[in-house]
C-alpha cells in the first residue's frame, strides 16, 4: 500500500516537472504541420496523417523539419504551402474576409444566448416576486406553512 502511494506521488511529481519544464520545449515540425492539411486525400492535419507511406505528407514533414533546422521562419513555411496549394491547405480558415464569420459566429451566438438567458431568468424570478406580492392580496392563497416549506426543501434535495 505504502509503496503504491509512493509510486503515485513519484509519478505526480514527475508530471509536475514535465508540465513545467516541457512548457518551453519547442515542437519544431508540428509548429508548422499542425497548421496544414495533408494533401494526400486523407483530410487529416499533416501532423496526424494516418498513412505511414504517405506520398505527400512524409516528404512535406521532412522538408519542414529541414527548413526549420536551417532557421526558416514557421510562418514563411506555412505561406510557402499556401502559395503552392491555395488556402485550402490551411487547417483553419484565415481571419480575413468572409472567413471571419467562422471565428466570430460561435461567440456571437453564445453572447446572444447569454443575454436571452439573463432576461429569461430575470423575467421568471420577477414573475415569482409579483406572484408572492399577489399572495398578500385579499382572496389570494394563504402563506405556505413553514412545516410544508421545509418538507418541500427536503423533497427537492431528494430529487438530485
Amino acid at each position: 500500500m505504502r509503496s503504491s502511494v509512493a509510486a503515485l506521488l513519484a509519478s505526480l511529481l514527475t508530471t509536475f516537472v514535465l508540465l513545467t519544464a516541457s512548457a518551453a520545449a519547442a515542437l519544431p515540425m508540428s509548429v508548422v504541420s499542425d497548421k496544414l492539411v495533408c494533401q494526400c486525400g486523407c483530410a487529416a492535419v499533416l501532423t496526424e496523417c494516418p498513412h505511414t507511406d504517405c506520398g505527400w505528407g512524409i516528404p512535406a514533414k521532412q522538408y519542414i523539419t529541414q527548413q526549420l533546422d536551417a532557421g526558416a521562419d514557421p510562418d514563411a513555411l506555412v505561406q510557402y504551402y499556401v502559395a503552392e496549394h491555395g488556402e485550402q491547405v490551411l487547417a483553419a480558415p484565415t481571419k480575413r474576409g468572409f472567413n471571419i464569420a467562422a471565428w466570430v459566429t460561435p461567440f456571437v451566438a453564445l453572447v446572444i444566448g447569454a443575454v436571452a438567458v439573463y432576461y429569461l431568468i430575470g423575467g421568471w424570478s420577477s414573475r415569482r416576486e409579483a406572484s408572492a406580492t399577489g399572495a398578500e392580496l385579499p382572496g389570494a392563497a394563504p402563506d405556505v406553512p413553514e412545516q410544508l416549506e421545509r418538507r418541500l426543501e427536503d423533497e427537492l434535495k431528494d430529487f438530485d
Partner: protein
Amino acid sequence: MNQIGYTALLLAVLVSLYGVVAPIVGARTGRREWIVSGERSAYALCAVVVLASIALMYALITHDYSVEYVWSYTSNDLSWFYTVSAFWAGNAGSMLLWLLIQSVFLAVVVYQNRRRNRELLPYVISVLMTIALFFSLLLTMSRGSNPFASVPGGVALANGNGLNPMLENPGMVIHPVTLYIGYVGFAIPFAFAMGALITKRLGDVWIRSTRRWTVVAWIFLTVGNIVGAWWAYVTLGWGGYWAWDPVENASFMPWLTGTAFLHSVMIQEKKDMLKVWNIVLIILTFTLTIFGTFLTRSGIISSVHSFGQSSLGPFFLGFMGLILVFSLNLLFSRLDLLKSRNELDSFVSRESSFLLNNLILVGMCFTVLWGVLFPIISEAVTGNKVTVGPPFFDQVMRPIGLVLMFVTGICPLIAWRRATLANLRKNLTYPAVGGLVALVVLLVLGMRHVYALISFTLSAFVLTAVLLEFARGTWVRREMTGENVARAFLSLVWRNKRRYGGYTVHVGVILLLIGVTGSYGFKSEATETLTKGESMSVGTYEITYDSFESFDLPEKTVGRVTFTLTDNGTYLGTVAPVKEYYFAKDQPWTRVDVNSNLGRDVYVSLLDYSAETGEANVEVRVNPLVAWLWIGGIVMTIGGIVAILPDRRETRRMAARYERQVRLHEI
C-alpha cells in the same frame, strides 16, 4: 443461409411497415386488438432482424466468400475475434447493427410498458417502427447496402480481401457498437416525447419513463467516444486521440445536447418548467445521431471515417428533414399545452445555473456544428472550400470549455430555489481555496501556460467542491448512524444514487479534462533515424536501440525494433514498436508501443526501417497526463451506472406521480 438472411430483411420491411400503421389504427379507432397486434409486431421485428443478423454472422464465421460483404471485410487468416467484428466493419453491416439494436430496444420498451404508459405506447411503437422501416428499406433497396449481396458472377473466391488493419484493434470492436447503442438509445426518449405530444400527455411522465434509457444512451455514447479516442491514440500513430474530424464531431454533438437534456429534464421534474426546451433538446439530440450517420455515408465532407462510395447520403438527409418537419410541426401545434408556470424563486439558484449549463453545452454543440458546416457555407458564398480543422476548434472551444468547467463546479454548490450570500460563501470558500492553492503551487513550480493554469485551477476548484460534497454527506451520515466511514460513504451513495452518481460523473469529466490539458499543452516529440546501439532523447527520456527482428506471416511482413527506455538514466523497461506490411491490401501499418504511467506516456512509433541494415526511423512523443483521460472516462461511466441503479424510493415516486397525472388527464 444468405437467402434466409435477405428474406428476413424483406420481412423486416413488411413487419416494420405494419408496426408503423397498426398501433396508430388501434389508438385512433379504440380497437384494442390492433394495438396488441402492433405490440406483437415489435417482437416479430426483433425476431426477423435477429435472424438476419445470425445469417450474416454465420456467413462471416464460415468465410462464405460468395457474399460480397464477407469477401470485402474478412480473409482466411483473420482471427475469430476480428471476423466477428467484421459484422460492423462496412456500411451494410453497420446499418444492420443499427437495425438490430433498434429492434431489440423496441421489444424491450414494449415489454417494459406492458402495464404502464398504455396511452403513449402505440405512438412510441409507431415512431420507433418508422425508424426501423427506414433502415430496413435502406438494407434491401440497393446492392451496395445489402449485406447479403453476392459477389459479381456469384462464384465464391478462395480468400477474402481482408479487414483493414486499422480495424484490427479491440477498440474498433467496442467503439462502433457502443456508439450505435448510444445513438439508438436516444431514439427511445425521442419516441416517448413524440408520443407525449401526440397524446397531449405533456407532464413529466415521458421523461421519467425514459430517464434510464436516456442515461444508458448517454453512458454508451460516452464510452463510444472515449474508446474511439483510445483507438485513435493507440492505432493511428500520430500521438493524439481527437482530431476534430467531422465524424468525431458528429458523435460529440449528440453527446453535448444529450448532456444538456439530462440536466434540463431535472428542472421539468422539479419545477414543471422548460417543457418546450426539453422536447427541442431531445429532437435535436436524436436528429444529430442521424446527422452523424449521414456524414459517414454522404461523402459531403472529407473524413478519415467515411464509408467509401456510398450513395445513401440523400436518403439520410431526407429522413433527417422528415424527422425535423414532423417533430417541430407537432411541437408547434402543442405550444399552448406546453405553457409552463415559469417562475424562479431567485436570480441565483440551482435552476438558473442549469440554464447556464444548457447554454454552454448547446453553444458548444453549435460551435462544433458550425465548424463542420462552414466549409460548405464558405464554398457556397465565396466559391472556396476552406478547411476547418483542429486549430479552429482548439482556439474556439478552449475558452468555452473552461467556462463549462467552471459551471460544472459551481452548479452543485448553489442551492435549489434560492441561493443566499451566506450559503454561497459557505459552499464556495473551500473549493476556491483548493483552486487557489493549485494555482500558487503551479506558478511556484514555474508553469506559465495561461490556459493550462486556468484549467488546472478550475479542476482543483471543481474536485474540491465535489469531494467536499461526498465528505460532508459521509460525515453527516456517520454522525446520524454511527457507521464507520466506509459504510457511511457507501450507504450515502446507495441512498442517493442519482445525486452522487451525477457528482461522480462530474469528477470523471474533470479528470478527463486534466488529461486533455496536460497532453495538449505540454507534449514534446522528436524524430530520428537510429541504428543498433544509438540513442535519442526527448526531455529526460532516452531510448536506446537494442535489437531488430523481421519475419513473415501469411498475410504480412512484420518489422519490430526493441528499445531500452530510461528516464534520467533510470531503467523503465523496453518498448517495441512495429511496422507491418499487408500483402493483400498493399498497405503498410505501424503499431505503436506506449510506456504509460499516471504522469505521462512515452509513445514510440516506428515510421520506417531497413530490413537489410536494421536502420530505423523512430518518432518519440512524451504526452503528459494522458492516462487521466481514460481514467476520467471510466469514472464517468461508473458515475452514470450508479445513477441508474434501481432505486425503490424513485420507483415509488414515479408510480405516485404517474397515477396523479393519469387522474389529472382523466379529469
